[in-house]
């Protein structure tokens, strides 16, 4: 948390707000990156905190590592079901004509397990390794086109490009039209309030276009020899090939959405963290082998999804607090990832940690991120290629952050590249 750049009075104010007035759901706190100061207080003073009033209604905040783990692995009591509100602090809303896509991230057992099982083999690392050379080559091409010594926006020119490229490669999506993938990912999760789509009607239209497009790809792949891309694998695998089309589409979009913002913001967040910690950047330049442990540390540090939400199916006591059936329970991964009682020097970015995968960014339990190995693989390749070309990606101005309490995003990051 960068307290130096913050106005003193803000830090003081946060330190003196009465506990029962703390509301960490406000997206502005994430945009200004001050939410960490609130989480520090909650972990120390009221780790299981009830917020009575907020724009998303009343909710519980779980802020310590072990409590988060206990909720995340207790899927019998804490439900992800979309109809109960789903997996984010803001309830999923069913809307007229909204073309609801069902995704297993927002389902409970047993349906969750059936669907997850069907899709799992397509992202098995042994399969993904086959795609590594293509991802590497294409990452190299993108990086080679960047101007040296000029100020550019790293987010737009690099993070978005690289993420779109890896998605297109994973799905063997027609290369010239690859930005469609990013667009569809954005609208899948978008509500009109965000400005990404004009209305639910407009969103529906676009999603139908997306459905037709994937239907075409599916039909093409099913008539070809099996290949390594995810669509071909799903079209040929006994577990998925007879899936009803809308179910296939829901699962496919979940894979796209799951890997889009999260990967993009990890790429941006890594550059920012290295710049804020020059000693770590030096370590990396002296010993690029550290990329292996730096990647999970970046994912902890960035925490691309700040939280997941559950709904209590029965009364339950946690940390001495009585949670009632039907209550909204928010597991703040961003806070748990800074919990010094579990993670050594949790408030520092350290690229050679002994146990760097011990973090909450991928969640735990039956919903634990299915793309965790894939995400690490992509980021490792990308960082290896960045390292080969640039001795430094220098941040030259203030980053801008996303106005969202769910996606911890960086929307702008001015940088200058130094050739190796």
């Amino acid at each position, binding site marked *: 948390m960068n307290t130096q750049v913050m106005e003193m009075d803000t830090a003081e104010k946060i330190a003196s707000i009465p506990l029962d007035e703390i509301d960490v759901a406000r997206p502005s706190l994430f945009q200004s990156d001050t939410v960490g100061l609130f989480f520090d207080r909650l972990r120390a003073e009221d780790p299981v905190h009830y917020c009575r009033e907020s724009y998303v209604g009343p909710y519980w905040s779980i802020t310590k590592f072990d409590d988060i*783990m206990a909720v*995340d*692995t207790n*899927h019998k009591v804490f439900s992800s079901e979309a109809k109960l509100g789903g997996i984010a602090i803001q309830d999923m809303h069913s809307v007229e004509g909204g073309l609801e896509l069902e995704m297993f991230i927002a389902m409970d057992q047993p349906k969750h*397990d059936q669907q997850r*099982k069907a899709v*799992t*083999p397509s992202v*098995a*690392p*042994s399969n993904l390794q086959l795609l590594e050379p293509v991802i590497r080559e294409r990452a190299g091409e993108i990086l080679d086109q960047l101007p040296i010594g000029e100020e550019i926006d790293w987010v737009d020119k690099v993070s978005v490009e690289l993420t779109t490229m890896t998605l297109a490669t994973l799905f063997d999506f027609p290369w010239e039209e690859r930005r469609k993938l990013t667009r569809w990912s954005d609208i899948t999760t978008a509500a009109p309030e965000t400005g990404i789509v004009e209305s639910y009607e407009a969103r529906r239209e676009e999603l139908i276009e997306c459905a037709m497009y994937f239907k075409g790809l599916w039909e093409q792949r099913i008539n070809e020899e099996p290949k390594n891309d995810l669509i071909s694998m799903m079209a040929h695998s006994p577990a998925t090939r007879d899936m009803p089309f809308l179910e296939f589409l829901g699962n496919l979009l979940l894979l796209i959405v799951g890997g889009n913002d999260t990967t993009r913001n990890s790429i941006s967040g890594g550059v920012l963290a290295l710049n804020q910690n020059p000693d770590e950047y030096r370590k990396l330049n002296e010993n690029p082998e550290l990329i292996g442990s730096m990647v999970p540390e970046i994912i902890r540090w960035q925490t691309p999804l700040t939280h997941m939400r559950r709904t209590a199916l029965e009364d339950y006591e946690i940390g001495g607090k009585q949670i009632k059936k039907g209550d909204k329970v928010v597991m703040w991964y961003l806070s748990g990832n800074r919990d010094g009682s579990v993670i050594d020097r949790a408030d520092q970015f350290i690229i050679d940690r002994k*146990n760097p*995968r011990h973090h909450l960014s*991928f969640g*735990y*339990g*039956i919903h*634990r991120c299915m793309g*965790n*190995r894939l995400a690490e693989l992509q980021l490792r390749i990308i960082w290896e290629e960045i390292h080969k070309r640039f001795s430094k990606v220098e941040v030259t101005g203030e980053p801008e952050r996303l106005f969202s309490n769910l996606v911890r995003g960086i929307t702008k990051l001015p940088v200058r590249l130094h050739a190796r």
Partner: protein
Amino acid sequence: MVKVTFVASDGERRAVEVEEGETAREAALFNDVPGIDGDCGGVCACATCHVHVDPEWIDKVGRLMKDGMEADLLQFAEGTTEYSRLACQIPIKPMLDGLVLHVPEEQY
């Protein structure tokens, strides 16, 4: 305390002491035994805690049940045998003192 020995794919042996009631997954993770990831937190959801129970121990540990989540998950693990189990589904009891578990080369 109960003694459990993990044998790595290259033959290296690691003996650890485990508290009764912990699982074989925890025995590995809490003692930094390499090769067991246990990603999902031990709730039988990720199959990254796959082990081969030493044939001499399989009857005491119990064989994989044909129906159920554990068998479903192991379907997708690499290199499964009739001795395959998920370490998070093996609670450590005094009768397992001396247990030997083989760690596969890869968890995927």
